[in-house]
């Protein structure tokens, strides 16, 4: 032990004069801060502008009838998009049930077992799939499901959207799992926990909030897709509760109404767009709140 009783010899403190911050630095500082604020505003502005315009154009046509009735024939006033709202939910539910497990599974493979050539191939294919135009995915689902069933269906629409969800979910899941420190995996191995158990109960669980972000991104992206539904779900003017029959979807209904020559239909298209965006925001927010509710203090 060093002797702590005697004081060390006092060191002379060197005299340095720190010059005052120059005006150039101050100006640059303010300029860069302003640039950052301006870019944030520029990024957020379109979002708020779109939402505000949708509310302005659509809110007037949203009423009980719009939310509870099916479309009226041309020329008759009133009617609504209830069947399309439900149809969109059904198609998105099918897409999520099919797409999320495959996407997360592929992400787990890429991060935990795919640090090699096979992984590189999957990564490449997945990135290419992400860039395939959505209408092409629609054709694939047409060939896979519609041709075989001999008619359009919610299932076919769900399959098309599921295919679109998989690459986004896979890559974000991979990134999120890679962020989990190796030490956490080792802690589980050290307790005699097998590798697959560790992956599911430790690694994936630790990365949950990031993985869910990826899932919600993919969900929000496909929720507004129209092209892949054109010849899969096809659309329907009436109620349909069967997943193997042509099904209405909000995006399809908006498309049909927006290109029609009737003012009443235009107004309903705006209302439909507003409902669609509220549904997406609502779904994302609900999942976020549910996740936060299950999180511990300090985690």
């Amino acid at each position: 032990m060093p002797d702590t009783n005697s004081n060390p010899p006092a060191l002379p403190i060197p005299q340095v004069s720190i010059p005052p911050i120059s005006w150039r630095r101050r100006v640059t500082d303010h300029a860069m801060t302003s640039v950052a604020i301006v870019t944030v505003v520029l990024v957020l502005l379109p979002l708020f502008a779109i939402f505000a315009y949708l509310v302005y154009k659509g809110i007037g046509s949203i009423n009980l009838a719009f939310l509870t009735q099916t479309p009226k024939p041309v020329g008759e006033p009133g009617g609504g998009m209830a069947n399309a709202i439900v149809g969109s939910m059904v198609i998105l539910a099918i897409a999520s049930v099919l797409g999320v497990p495959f996407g997360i599974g592929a992400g787990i493979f890429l991060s935990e077992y795919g640090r090699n050539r096979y992984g590189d191939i999957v990564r490449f294919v997945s990135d290419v799939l992400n860039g395939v135009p959505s209408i092409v995915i629609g054709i694939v689902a047409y060939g896979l499901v519609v041709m075989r069933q001999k008619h359009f269906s919610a299932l076919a629409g769900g399959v098309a959207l599921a295919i679109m969800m998989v690459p986004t979910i896979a890559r974000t899941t991979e990134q999120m799992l890679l962020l989990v420190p190796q030490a956490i995996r080792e802690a589980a191995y050290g307790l005699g926990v097998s590798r697959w158990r560790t992956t599911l109960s430790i690694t994936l669980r630790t990365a949950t909030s990031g993985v869910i972000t990826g899932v919600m991104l993919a969900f929000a992206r496909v929720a507004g897709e129209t092209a892949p539904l054109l010849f899969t779900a096809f659309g329907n003017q009436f109620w349909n509760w069967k997943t193997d029959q042509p099904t209405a979807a909000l995006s399809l209904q908006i498309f049909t109404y927006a290109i029609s020559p009737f003012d009443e239909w235009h107004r309903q298209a705006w209302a439909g767009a507003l409902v669609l965006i509220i549904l997406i925001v609502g779904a994302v927010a609900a999942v976020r709140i549910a996740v936060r509710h299950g999180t511990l203090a300090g985690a």
Partner: protein
Amino acid sequence: MGVGITVEHLNAFYGKTQALFDINIAVLANHATALIGPSGCGKSTFIRCLNRMHETIPEARVDGAVRIGDLSVYNGTSATQLRRRVGMVFQKPNPFPTMSIYDNVAAGLKLNGFRKRKQLDEIVHKSLNASALWDEVKDHLHKKSGASLSGGQQQRLCIARALAVQPEVLLMDEPCSALDPISTGKIEELIFQLKEQYTIVIVTHNMQQAARVAEFTGFFLLGKMIEFDKTEKIFTNPSDKRTEDYVTGRFG
């Protein structure tokens, strides 16, 4: 009860680089054995060979024989079975961040399929008691995450987690290197008590710590075990010149 460890002609490799050269050692049951040596000399690699943690690194491999009690580590034993009998505490505290304090301690048992609620409660209580953490956390076992504790508490949580699976051997890889002196003191006291039930192998950079907690000490240098003897002998009258130079601070 702890069991003894025997290691014969152990060599370990990372790809083409050899990290350990012909290690032979017999660790006594229910004693603490310290491994000292400069950074990069293979101490950590060595204890990771004892619970086959070494092989989780790609391209790493081992040859030689290791026996833990009556269990042959590299001959027909599954790594997961082995690791349930050989607990490990790591250099940096690594609690599972999404789990509560309770779930952290119960993790080893739960993830291996043990679900009896009452017994789990009891084991969690006992393990936290054994790691001298119970009094500090008993009021928020389920409410707080393991990651919300202080560094020293986290390390004791990790010790409790390792104890909960009721191992016979406890490997500690520099368990105090990230902790302040007070937490270090608590963990050293703990090692003293744990010796009665477990065989402890501890890697440390702190020679005083080795002298305080361990009956036996091994000195590693460049992947070789230079000397292995009673701690007292290593620090007062080592037979090898290099050991003497290291413990007297002339190099390393």
